[in-house]
């Protein structure tokens, strides 16, 4: 479970990137986080992952505070950034192995899961190559495998489908469904509203750092597409 309580993040003391955000994402939820460029999505996601400090509020991952009990909270969490900048001097397999060892994954389980996900994302034969030689999509696949190999209870993704080929996009969606059915909490940002509509059971919309809508996907898309609903909610807020 992921719980965001009164989360506020300011930059340079005079710019509020996210203002008093409250969200609760339960086990088994696939939650879409939608908004304009610069609305505060990546800031929120980075704060959840423990990458940036924040001024007010707290974030709980399975009831463990990322602020006060960061190591335990991070143990349950996997994060995939929008731009997978990985260690270029390592081979793909070395990177996955490195991340897995940070989460103390058993060696046999590690091997089993790497094989499974490398097959799924069709990158097995490139695992021995240096990351510096990978394309954007291949890096994204390595980041995904590294995130999934330690079987996280909470999965945080920032624009996960950017750069992925259609086959892998399909496999990732299926895997997200499977993980959610097994109780994993999934929270991801996206600009692709069609994907969010089909994949997620809940949605939150953020605008200029403030949460303007949250609720069930079926409620927001009653009789219309998510795109239409999104535009309506956005316009209401502008007025």
């Amino acid at each position: 479970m992921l719980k965001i309580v009164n989360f506020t993040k300011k930059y340079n003391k005079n710019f509020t990137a996210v203002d008093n955000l409250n969200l609760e994402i339960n086990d088994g939820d696939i939650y879409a986080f939608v908004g304009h460029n610069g609305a505060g999505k990546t800031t929120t996601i980075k704060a959840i992952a423990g990458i940036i400090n924040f001024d007010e509020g707290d974030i709980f991952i399975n009831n463990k505070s990322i602020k006060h009990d960061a190591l335990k909270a991070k143990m349950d969490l996997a994060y995939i950034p929008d731009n997978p900048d990985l260690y270029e001097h390592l081979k793909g397999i070395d990177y996955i192995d490195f991340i897995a060892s940070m989460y103390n994954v058993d060696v046999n389980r590690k091997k089993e899961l790497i094989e499974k996900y490398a097959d799924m994302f069709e990158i097995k034969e490139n695992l021995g190559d240096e990351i510096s030689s990978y394309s954007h999509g291949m890096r994204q696949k390595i980041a995904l495998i590294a995130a999934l190999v330690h079987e996280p209870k909470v999965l945080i993704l920032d624009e996960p489908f950017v750069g992925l080929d259609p086959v892998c996009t399909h496999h990732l969606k299926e895997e997200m469904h499977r993980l959610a059915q097994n109780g994993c909490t999934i929270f991801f940002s996206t600009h692709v509203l069609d994907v969010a509509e089909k994949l997620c059971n809940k949605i939150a919309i953020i605008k200029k750092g403030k949460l303007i809508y949250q609720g069930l996907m079926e409620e927001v898309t009653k009789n219309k597409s998510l795109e239409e609903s999104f535009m309506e909610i956005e316009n209401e807020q502008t007025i």
Partner: protein
Amino acid sequence: MNKLFKLLSLNMRDYLNFYKILNAPSFSSKCQELFKFIFIILVYCIFGFFIYMFAKLLLETLITLKIEYVCLGIFFALSNIIILISSCFLIDGLFYNSKDYDILNSLPISKNIIITSKMLNLYFSNLLFTILIMVPVLIAYTSLVSVNISFYILYIITIFIIPLIPTIISIIIGSLITFISTRFQAKKLFQFIIMSISIVIYFYFSFKNSSLNEIQLAELGQSFLNMFNKIYPLTNNYLDLLLNHNLKSLLIFIILPIILYIITTVIISSIYKNIISKIGERKKHKNYTLKVTNNKQFISLFKKELKRLLSSPMYIFNSLYGLILLILGIVIILFMSPEKIATLTGFTEFVNLIKDKNALLIGLTLLLSCTTSSSISLEGKNLWIVKSIPVDPLKIFFSKINVNFWITFIPGVISIFIINYLFKLGIGNLLLNILIISNYAFLVSILGLIINLHFPYFDWKNEVRVIKQSLAVFLSLTCGLAIGLVFLLCNLKLELIIIILLFINIILFLYLKYVGVKLWSKL
């Protein structure tokens, strides 16, 4: 020309703090940037002061031998050699593996302009280094030797010309090595090996048949100059220009860079795209089998740090200057006894210095070897990885510290054993010296890391920016030099030095634990 200036000014913004001062969003951040700028100037001044003191000490000895002009030749040759060798290691990263390559090549800018802008960037950073060395030498020289106004004019002109030649030669050598290395699987390793071999061959032929022996002591000045002229063949021309105002030598310094520049642009233009496309080629490992390890967190972090260091010849060379000095020194002592060195140099105290203060001398070289001072900045865009993993920041710090510690400690201890064997200093002395070395190795590692935590820089396009030109690296080098010289020059007992070092290390550890972790969380 306009495009070249725009490219240059864009790159200069990255180096010069006053752009940040002018563009800071608020008054407090303007003050912060101004403070940083003043601090950088202060660190440069301290470093310059060390050079001044060293040049003055050297000059005082040379004046008694009436060969004071040798000082100019020595610093000229040394600054050229350092620029030449260190720049060779930068060419691959700066010219061919730069992150701005794609965007620059997609713009309607000619190849020559891109190459020239990169060349000038390297020249400006080498010019800063030259100013830092040659200006304190000028102050020291003119305070002890009377010179006329034309000396000043020519000296200042040559400061701008000095870095041109080694910069251009390094670009030619570095480009050719990069070009050849693209044909190899382990191209970085190949580059490092070939450059190291080239340096060894270069010095071997420079020193070979150097006529510095006891018979010629009466002509010591000329013998020294001959030696330095072999190391860097323009040394005699430089002195000829400064002391005799020979305009022929000035012409050499003006024409040579122009010819070299033309050769460089012709060579690089013809191999540029070839190198870039070869670098971009994806090399597949045949018959790949999946292998995973059972490493614990710390071992994995340590291996990752070690691989990062070994993946970049430039990182190795530019972070481990001191170790290279140490290895050279030990080899010279092994092949030429300390007594012979003392006789040849006229420095009679050399034998006693090696006997009594070998650990402090070796320690000084270790203090100039620091990989940690750029290790935080080098995380760059990968910072999200180490910040999102469930690992105590102290464990991450110690993985970085350990890499530097073992890399400096092992050669340090081997050197202590060699000197102990040569002088038969006894087991008690050996143990004391090992304790000193271990404290020095830990000190430089933790100090570099703390400095980098205070002065990180993540928005680099090329790792040259943090490995060679960052404030953290420079500050760490200056602090290391200051600490090493203080212990070397103060006549303290070894036991007392160990206690002081231990105390400093404990303080630094506590600082890292309580302040360093907070700094890390703010990154």
